[in-house]
């Protein structure tokens, strides 16, 4: 603190922004962070899906393309074309989980910047909404780059892939919202996240119809996949990108994903409020 007299910029006085304007301010905060740190996140959010694309789409795909059973499973499409919309969803769901675990717990517990935010006119609901909307926008941005890369490898056949990208964003939010709610209830150093990654995220990635249709699984396993938001997203994204989906299942998948966003957000807001305003 200094002794010298400083020209004082008198404030018009702080004021409480409306609910929506407050969310925009939280987004501005995220954007300020991203402008400075995008390089680090770009590596993890684009490189990793790229590796999936090369390994499965290009490598594994060229191995099985042209075989009868693969063509039967993909409906006659190149494996890469069949895989592309699903990969968008996998990448979205992974971002949804990663961005809603340690970063959320840090805001509440380690760095505590959520406490700083909610000491201003901003409330817990706006913090949650800002986090989820920002995450969804980021998924969309990274997904767009991903689509361009997939197109480069010849994996895009129709403009429906744009719709698939929107579905992927919805799937990412459908996972991010409940995971945010889960993280807000974590009091320790986040040991539960390891369990979440290993026992939920990885099995979900492997058995949600991404790399092979779930009807190849034993009949008794199939109902379990219905619990997976990634499966709903993948079915929907594939229908959007490749056509051939019926209206009723599409509506059902959308309803499940929207319900997860709504329910997860609602629980997250309650838990944030309880934790930040205790």
């Amino acid at each position, binding site marked *: *603190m200094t002794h*010298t007299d400083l020209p004082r910029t008198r404030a018009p006085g702080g004021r409480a922004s409306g609910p929506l304007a407050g969310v925009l301010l939280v987004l501005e905060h995220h954007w*300020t*962070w991203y402008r400075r740190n995008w390089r680090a996140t770009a590596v993890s959010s684009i490189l990793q899906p790229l590796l999936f694309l090369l390994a499965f789409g290009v490598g594994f795909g060229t191995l099985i393309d042209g075989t009868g059973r693969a063509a039967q499973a993909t409906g006659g499409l190149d494996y890469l074309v069949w895989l592309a919309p699903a990969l968008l969803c996998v990448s979205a769901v992974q971002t949804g989980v990663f961005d809603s675990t340690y970063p959320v717990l840090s805001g509440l517990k380690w760095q505590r*910047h959520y406490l700083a935010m909610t000491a*201003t006119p*901003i409330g817990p609901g706006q913090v949650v909404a800002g986090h989820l909307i920002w995450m969804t926008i980021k998924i969309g941005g990274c997904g767009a780059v991903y689509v361009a890369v997939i197109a480069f490898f010849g994996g895009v056949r129709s403009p429906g892939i744009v719709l698939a990208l929107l579905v992927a964003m919805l799937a990412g939010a459908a996972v991010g919202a409940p995971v945010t709610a889960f993280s807000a209830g974590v009091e320790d150093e986040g040991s539960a996240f390891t369990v979440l990654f290993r026992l939920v995220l990885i099995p979900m990635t492997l058995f949600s119809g991404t790399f092979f249709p779930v009807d190849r699984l034993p009949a008794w396993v199939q109902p379990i996949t219905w619990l997976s938001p990634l499966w709903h997203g993948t079915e929907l994204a594939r229908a959007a990108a490749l056509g051939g989906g019926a209206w009723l299942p599409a509506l059902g998948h959308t309803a499940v994903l929207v319900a997860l966003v709504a329910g997860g957000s609602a629980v997250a807001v309650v838990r944030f409020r309880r934790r930040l305003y205790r």
Partner: protein
Amino acid sequence: MGDGLVQARGLRKSFGGFEAVRGVDVDVARGEIFGFLGPNGAGKSSTMRMIACVSPRSGGELSVLGMDPDVDGPRIRARIGVVPQLDNLDTELTVRENLEIYGRYFGLSRAHVRHKAVELLELAQLGDRGDAAVESLSGGMKRRLTIARSLVNDPELLLLDEPTTGLDPQARHLLWDRLYRLKGEGVTQIVTTHYMDEAEQLCDRLVVMDGGVIVAEGSPGELIAGYSTREVLELRFPPGTVAPVETVEQLADRVEVLPDRLLLYTSHGDHLQAELARRGLTPLSALVRRSSLEDVFLRLTGRSLVD
């Protein structure tokens, strides 16, 4: 209730079965610096958090800036500044971005927060560190930034929860000077502190809390006059010897037994010292000083031997 800036009546806060604040009455007048003193766990921070509208009260009445925190939390928070006990800066942003982003949350324009940030950087003596990441700052610098950040919305009411913890003596004195100037500008301030000299320097009025209730209230001078004597004789005896507590008890108004020394409360320290010498008591060292808030604090928070 009257027209105080902060008014509490029977204010309570419980966490599960534990009652942290057990019926507190407080009136903070516009323009004063008001202090909360008390040992750890006395309920100071819980009270501060209720006033800051980030902790719903469990009972009683509370009005801040004439509004009810339960109803008008965001509107109240828009007009107050908060220095939390633990820094909660966004360590992945720069120093300047922390000030600007925080200012934006108060609905201030980008142009305004840009100017304001420059001014606050000077105030916090971080003018040349504006574009540094917060992570790279020392503990004292982070504390100064947190304090500067609390002024971004030109608050009418400033809540400082142990503001000088982690600051070096120079920075403490500069902060006191700055808080005094803010008082001159009409900013009401509520401070919690462990430092008695800080409370004595800064506070117009203060309350001593212990076990969730207020045990004394007044100006520093009133509290010293009411709960202590004019002077204190501090005696230190060689380690291992038994301090002659019974003898000095007869001579002093009150005696405080600390692990390493005896505090003798009396109106005339020199007279008492002479009398002890006459009786052949030879302490390792003896010091006569004026009573301070620390003496009030020791007495009120239950470490007193003779009441």
